[in-house]
């Protein structure tokens, strides 16, 4: 009786880790497996037989690839805008003392804390009152708004841990303000900025609630999935989901490989 118990005690952390991993990955596995299904009816919920049909024709469903393109476009633009603005805000909050700095510091995190449904409804009320046509631009404005706080959080943490003397050293070594920013500040803050940008992209790409309220007749990919789920789920949705997952994993792996190689290359 003793040996299995000892074994369990020794490997508890590993078991717990694998269990958690399985818990997180299982939905992705289901999505992936069912992307190879050939469902008999309109709903892709029961396994029938293996098929590559959906993978061969990912855009075979009407309007789906259009909504996917729109979602990617919105994610890209809101990531760019939120990253640029958020980085500037983070630097301002850490480096400068100005009026209402404290207020900005706490209010910037409001979109993170507020229930999404509340924000969605109030944004809609705002847009309607201002008489703005709902569509691409209202979605973009909304997405930039809620991505902003995540970028600020990520970049701020990085800038806070940055030694201000590094910039002084750069200025001391004949680098003007622009050179100092480009050669020293930006490269050192880059990991924080990249983290904020990735987060923005992911958040914007799969946002449903706020988008649904403020999109008018425009249909993004999450909205398309939701809409089609009422009438039947094409296998292509699983194909797109799996592809996104694989791309994300590849990006992470590539990042780690670059990091490892850099570490290995340094010591002689």
């Amino acid at each position, binding site marked *: 009786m003793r040996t299995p118990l000892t074994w369990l005690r020794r490997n508890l952390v590993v078991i717990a880790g694998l269990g958690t991993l399985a818990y997180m990955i299982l939905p992705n596995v289901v999505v992936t497996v069912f992307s190879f299904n050939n469902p008999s009816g309109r709903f892709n919920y029961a396994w029938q037989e293996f098929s590559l049909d959906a993978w061969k024709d990912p855009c075979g469903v009407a309007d789906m690839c259009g909504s996917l393109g729109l979602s990617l476009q919105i994610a890209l633009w809101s990531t760019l805008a939120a990253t640029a603005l958020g980085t500037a805000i983070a630097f301002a909050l850490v480096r400068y003392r100005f009026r209402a700095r404290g207020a900005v510091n706490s209010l910037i995190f409001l979109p993170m804390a507020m229930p999404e449904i509340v924000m969605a409804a109030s944004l809609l009320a705002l847009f309607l009152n201002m008489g703005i046509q709902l569509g691409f631009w209202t979605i973009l404005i909304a997405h930039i708004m809620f991505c902003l706080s995540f970028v600020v959080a990520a970049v701020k943490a990085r800038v806070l841990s940055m030694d201000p003397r590094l910039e002084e*050293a750069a200025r*001391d070594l004949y680098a003007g303000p622009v*050179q100092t920013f480009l050669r020293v500040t930006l490269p050192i803050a880059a990991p924080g900025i990249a983290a904020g940008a990735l987060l923005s992209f992911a958040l914007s790409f799969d946002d449903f609630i706020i988008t649904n309220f403020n999109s008018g007749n425009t249909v993004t990919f999450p909205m398309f999935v939701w809409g089609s789920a009422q009438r039947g789920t094409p296998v292509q949705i699983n194909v797109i989901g799996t592809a996104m997952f694989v791309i994300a994993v590849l990006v992470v792996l590539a990042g780690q490989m670059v990091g490892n190689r850099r570490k290995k290359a*340094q010591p002689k």
Partner: protein
Amino acid sequence: MTDKTEGGDVRLSGISKHYGTFTAVHPLDLTVPQGSFFALLGASGCGKTTTLRMIAGLEEPSTGTVHLGDREVTHLPPYKRPVNTVFQSYALFPHLSIFENIAFGLRRRGIKSVKKQVEEMLELVQLGQFAQRKPHQLSGGQQQRVAVARALINHPQVLLLDEPLGALDLKLRRQMQLELKRIQTEVGITFVHVTHDQEEAMTMADTVAVMNGGRVEQLGAPAELYENPRTTFVANFLGTSNLIEASVESAGSDVVVSASGTTLRLPATRCSTTPRAGGKLLVGVRPEKVSLVPAEEENAIAAGRNKITGRIAASSFIGVSTQFVVDSPVCAELEVYVQNIERDARLVPGAEVVLHWNPEHTFGLDAAQDMEAGIETVEESA
């Protein structure tokens, strides 16, 4: 290097710095001669780093001007001054290799072929094989040398060093002191060195300015400061001093003072204040100038020497010398350092002894100042 003759002195005139109501540096005039190794010495918060940063251009002075030679640079930004700094934390760029760190200044000035110069500089600081590493892969001493190389490669008119050895352990610090001194002699650039370590300042610098509370207390060559302190702060901060409060009996070319019935003499030229008969005077003597004999040998002491009787309260053997603490009615806790040439077995705690020294080695200070000034900081930095 004689090709840097256009450099000239660093001149600070009436320079001061306020932060709101707090005055970090009181208006101060200072001239650092070209090619010298100049130390600003003081406890933390005395304004020495602020002064350095005003020379670098990282801090704008509230009043006064900064001149490099004939050129006024008071309002020039740091990147337009021919001055480079070695920062306390080194501030090496973590994302750049050692090579690129050192090449940084050259590249910013648009110099294309940096390879030869960088390699020479790496050679000078003996880090040739580390060129492609990142700063975090080097030890503290190596990082420090990179910081020096990164500044020196630009051939600045003045090199500013802000506590550059503060983060190193004692042995490495000694080694780097000699190293920096060697480099300074080799390149002939003016060094302005900020430190709180009095030993470091005295070992390395030609001239030391002792700062306290935003003011320069005294300025001079290390030996001059040590032998002739003009304030209690300097007397206590640089090494250790025995200070005795005494009343002046007569003031001629020799000043005669008395403290608790003991009469002491000192030359009037060694007083930083003008002693007046009937007034007070702080009489000081360095512990290593004092000799110690058992009380029964008092008669063997040569005439004309200052003498104080007391009892040994404590002694500590530190190899090269023995440090005694002597309690006396004149002054509690007089310190005496005796070289361990022939150790006298009678000099143990509790023994009655006589302290004696040459009156020439006595200095006199204004009695109207804090006798304890500068003491704690010495213990802190030791």
